[in-house]
C-alpha cells in the first residue's frame, strides 16, 4: 500500500481567519476531528471530575470535618460519578474508536459521518446540561442545584417528594440526551466494522481493536436502551402522574434498580473493552511479538459481551432477592471471570519470550495488567454474595471499581494517548515527562486505592460526608487523600506534555514504533482522506508482511 500523500496546495491554509477554522471544527464530519473533539471534551471533564473527587477527599481526610456541607458533598459524589462515567470515559472510548477505527481497517471514514457529528454534539450537550444545574434551577435551598441522588439515582429518593426542585431532572435529561449520542456512535461503529473493511481484511484478519470496539458497540445498543426507558419512566413519575417507582402508591423501588443495573453492568464492559483494545495493540508492539492466541481473544471478547448481559443483579445482592436468584447471579458473575482471566493470560503470553521496550505506552500497559488483575480478584470477592453482604455499598466496592476504572481503564488509556499521539499530532511526546507522569500517577493511585479497601473491610459505608472517630477508619482515609495530590500532579504533567509536544516535539514520521497495523502506513497526521490508495491486506499484521517479505504472517496464520 502507498505511504505517499497526495499533496494539496498549502497557500490558502495559513491565511484562514480563526472564525473560519472554528467553523470547520464545529461543522466537521471527519472522524479524526470528531475523535479529537471527543477526547478534548473528555480531558476537560476529567479535570472537573478530579476536582470534585479532591473536594470529597479533603472533606474525608479526618472525622467530623467541615470543609464542605453535607449537601455539597452529596452533590459532589453524584456529579463526580456521573461526569466520570458519561462525560469522561465514554467520550474517551468513542473518541479513540472514532479516530482509529477507520484507519485500522483501511477505510476512508466512518460509515455515517453526519450521524457521527450529531452523536458527538448530543453527548457534548448532555454534559453541558448536567453542569448547567450548578447555576440554573433554583431549588428549595437557593441558587444552584446540582443533582445529589447518587450516580445511580435509586428510587424513591428521586421522586418529587424526596428530591424537590429540578436537580434530579438535570441528571435525568442530560443522560437521556447523551444516551442517544452513545447509541448513534455505536450504530456507526457496528456499520463501519461490518461494511467498510478494506479488501483482504476478513473479520478474522481485522485488528483486535476492531473486535473489541464492535462488541462494545453492541453492548451500548443493548444497554443504553433500558436506561433511556427508565429515565422516561422517572420523568413520567415526576411530572405526568406515573407511579412506576412510587412506592407510596404501590410502585417498585427494586424495578428501578433492575432497569438501572441492566444498563449499568454492561456499561462497565463498554468502558473496559476499549481499554483491552489498547492493551491488545500496544503490548504486542512493545514486546515485538504478535498477540498470543488471537482466535481465543476474539472468543473471549464475544463471551464477555454475552455473559455481561446476565450478571447485573450482583449490584443488588443486598436488596432481598430470593436465595435462588442470588445463587444464579453468583454463578454468572463467576462465569465471566473465566474469559476475562484468559485475556490476562494471553497478554502475559504475548510478553513472554519477547524483547520488551519500556517506553511510556508500555509502562502504562504493564500497570494496567497488574491493576486489572487485582481489580478482577476483588471483583470475584464481591461476586460471592455472602461476602458481598459485608463488602457491598462500602469503601471496598469504591476501591474495587476505581481499581478497574482508574487502575485498569485510565492506565490503558494513558498508554493509548502516548502510543497514538505521534500519529495524531505528527510529533513525538517528551519521554522523560511521560515517565514522570507514569511514576507519579502510579504512586498516587496505589496510595489512594490500595488503602481504600481497608475502611471498607472495617465497616465504612460509601456516600457518607463524614464519619465517627473511633471506628479505626481515620488513618486510612488520611493516606487515601494524600494519594490524590500525586495523581493530580501526574495529570498536570500529562496535559503539559501533550501541549508542549504538540508545538515543540520532534517530527514523528509515519511509523515511530515500528508497528504493524494500517494506521502506521499513512502520514502523521493522516491526510483528510486517510489513504492515498486503498490498502489490500493478507494477514493480521499488514505492515509486518511489508517489512518482512521473506517471512510474512500470512504463511503462518
Amino acid at each position: 500500500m502507498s505511504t505517499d500523500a497526495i499533496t494539496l496546495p498549502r497557500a490558502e491554509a495559513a491565511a484562514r481567519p480563526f472564525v473560519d477554522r472554528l467553523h470547520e471544527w464545529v461543522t466537521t464530519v471527519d472522524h479524526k476531528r470528531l475523535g479529537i473533539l471527543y477526547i478534548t471534551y473528555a480531558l476537560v471533564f476529567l479535570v472537573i471530575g478530579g476536582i470534585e473527587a479532591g473536594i470529597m477527599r479533603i472533606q474525608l481526610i479526618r472525622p467530623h470535618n467541615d470543609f464542605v456541607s453535607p449537601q455539597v458533598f452529596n452533590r459532589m459524589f453524584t456529579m463526580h460519578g456521573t461526569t466520570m462515567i458519561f462525560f469522561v470515559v465514554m467520550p474517551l472510548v468513542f473518541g479513540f474508536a472514532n479516530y482509529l477505527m477507520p484507519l485500522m481497517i483501511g477505510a476512508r471514514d466512518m460509515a455515517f459521518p453526519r450521524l457521527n457529528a450529531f452523536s458527538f454534539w448530543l453527548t457534548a450537550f448532555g454534559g453541558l446540561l448536567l453542569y448547567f444545574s450548578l447555576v440554573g434551577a433554583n431549588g428549595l435551598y437557593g441558587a444552584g442545584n446540582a443533582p445529589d441522588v447518587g450516580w445511580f439515582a435509586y428510587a424513591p429518593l428521586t421522586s418529587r417528594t424526596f428530591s424537590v426542585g429540578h436537580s434530579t431532572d438535570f441528571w435525568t435529561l442530560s443522560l437521556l440526551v447523551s444516551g442517544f449520542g452513545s447509541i448513534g456512535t455505536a450504530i456507526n461503529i457496528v456499520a463501519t466494522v461490518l461494511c467498510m473493511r478494506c479488501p483482504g481484511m476478513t473479520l478474522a484478519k481485522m485488528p483486535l481493536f476492531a473486535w473489541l470496539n464492535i462488541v462494545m458497540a453492541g453492548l451500548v445498543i443493548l444497554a443504553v436502551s433500558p436506561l433511556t426507558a427508565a429515565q422516561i419512566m422517572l420523568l413520567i413519575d415526576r411530572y405526568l402522574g406515573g407511579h412506576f417507582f412510587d412506592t407510596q402508591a404501590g410502585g417498585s423501588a427494586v424495578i428501578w434498580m433492575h432497569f438501572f443495573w441492566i444498563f449499568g453492568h454492561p456499561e462497565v464492559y463498554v468502558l473496559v473493552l476499549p481499554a483491552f483494545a489498547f492493551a491488545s495493540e500496544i503490548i504486542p508492539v512493545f514486546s515485538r511479538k504478535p498477540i498470543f492466541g488471537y482466535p481465543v481473544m476474539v472468543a473471549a471478547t464475544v463471551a464477555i459481551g454475552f455473559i455481561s448481559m446476565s450478571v447485573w443483579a450482583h449490584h443488588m445482592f443486598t436488596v432481598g432477592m430470593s436465595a435462588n436468584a442470588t445463587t444464579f447471579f453468583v454463578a454468572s458473575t463467576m462465569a465471566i471471570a473465566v474469559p476475562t482471566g484468559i485475556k490476562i493470560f494471553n497478554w502475559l503470553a504475548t510478553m513472554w519470550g519477547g524483547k520488551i521496550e519500556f517506553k511510556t505506552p508500555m509502562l502504562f500497559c504493564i500497570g494496567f495488567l497488574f491493576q486489572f488483575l487485582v481489580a478482577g480478584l476483588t471483583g470475584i470477592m464481591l461476586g460471592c454474595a455472602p461476602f458481598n453482604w459485608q463488602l457491598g455499598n462500602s469503601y471496598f466496592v469504591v476501591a474495587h471499581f476505581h481499581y478497574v476504572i482508574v487502575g485498569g481503564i485510565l492506565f490503558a488509556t494513558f498508554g493509548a494517548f502516548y502510543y497514538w499521539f505521534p500519529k495524531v499530532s505528527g510529533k513525538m511526546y517528551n519521554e522523560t515527562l511521560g515517565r514522570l507522569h507514569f511514576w507519579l500517577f502510579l504512586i498516587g493511585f496505589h496510595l489512594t486505592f490500595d488503602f481504600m479497601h481497608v475502611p471498607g473491610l472495617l465497616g465504612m459505608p460509601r456516600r457518607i460526608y463524614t464519619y465517627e472517630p473511633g471506628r479505626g477508619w481515620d488513618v486510612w482515609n488520611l493516606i487515601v487523600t494524600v494519594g490524590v495530590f500525586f495523581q493530580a500532579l501526574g495529570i498536570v504533567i500529562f496535559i503539559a506534555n501533550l501541549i508542549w509536544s504538540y508545538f515543540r516535539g520532534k517530527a514523528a514520521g509515519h511509523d515511530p514504533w515500528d508497528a504493524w497495523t494500517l494506521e502506521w502506513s499513512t502520514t502523521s497526521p493522516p491526510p483528510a482522506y486517510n489513504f492515498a490508495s486503498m490498502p489490500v491486506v493478507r494477514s493480521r499484521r499488514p505492515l509486518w508482511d511489508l517489512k518482512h517479505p521473506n517471512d510474512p504472517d500470512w504463511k503462518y496464520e
Partner: protein
Amino acid sequence: MRSRSSINWRGLASQVLVCFGAAPAAFADPAPRLSPTSIFAPASTPADSIFGLSLFVLAVTGAIFVVVFTLLAYSVVKFRKNAGDDGREPPQVYGSNQVELAWTVIPVLIVLALFMATGRVIASIQKASTPSNAITVITIGHQFWWEYRYPGLGVVTANELHVPVSNLERPTPTFIQLLSADTDHSFWVPRLAGKTDLIPNHPNHMWIDPHETGVYLGQCAQYCGTQHAKMLLRVYVQSRDEFDRWVQEQRQPASVNATTSQGQRIFETTACINCHTVAGTAADGLFGPDLTHLMSRDTIAAGAAPNTRENLRLWIQNPAAIKPVSLMPAMQLSDPDMDALTDYLETLR
C-alpha cells in the same frame, strides 16, 4: 442455627491463610482493637459464616494473585530488551491450543469451587427457619433514624436495638423484619451480620444470634438523603435477665411527675406531639422517634450525639448544629420554656 458442614472450610482456609500469612487473619480478633466494626471480628452466626467463606475466597484469590504476579514480574525482568540487542525480532509465536485449554479448564474448576462454597453459605443464612423462641423485631427505616417494634413483647423504641445474647447450645436468635417509611436504607452491623436493605414496599428480613454481650456499632449503608452519614446503629446485646428487665421497663408508660408539669404542658401544646409519642400521655405522633423512654438511651439523633442535657437542649433549639437537614425542626422556644421542656424530657426514663 449454625450449618454443619462436612468439610471444615474455616479450618482449611485458616491453614491456607497461615501459609500465605494473609493480613485478614490478624483482623480476626475476638476483642477487636483495630475497629469495632470490622467484618473480620464476627460475633454472630451470619457474620461467622461470611467470615469463614471470606477466608476461603481470600485464600483462593490470594493464590491466583501470587501466581500471576510472579509470572508478570518474571516476564518484565527476563524478557526486557537488552542494551546490546542485535535488533532482530524474537520468535513470533501466534498461540498454543494446549496452553489455552489449560488456562481455561483450571479457572473453570476454581470458579466451580468458589461457586459451590458460596451457594452453601447463601442457603445457610437465607434459608434459616425461625425457631419458636426467637425474638422478633420489626425495624422501620426513616430519614434519618431507626424505629424498632417488638410485636410479641409490646415494646416500641428507636435507634438503639436491644437483643438477648444467644448461646450456641440453646440459641435465642433475633429475627428482624426490615421495612421502610420513605426511601431505601440498609441495616449494617458488620460484627453481627451482612447488610440487608430496607426498601419501601419490599419487606426484607434478617437474623442475628450474637454470642457475646456488648454494644455493637454500625450505620445505614444505602444512601438515603442528606443525613445518611449520621443514621448510626447501636445494638445492645444483653444477658437474658438484663434483656427481660429492659423489656419490662420499656413496656411501662411514661411516669407523670408534678414538678415537670410545665415542661409536659409545653411538650403537649407545641408541635412536639405531632411527631412524637410518649406512652400514657396525649402525645401520639408517629413521624418521629418514640420518646417514652428517651433517657434510657445513650445517644440521641440516631447516634449523632451523646444523650446529655446540653445536647438534648441543643437538639431541640437548633438541630442543624448536630445534624443539619434532619427532619427535626428548630422549635424556636424561649430559654425558660427550653429549660422546663428539657427538665420534663429528662424524666422520661
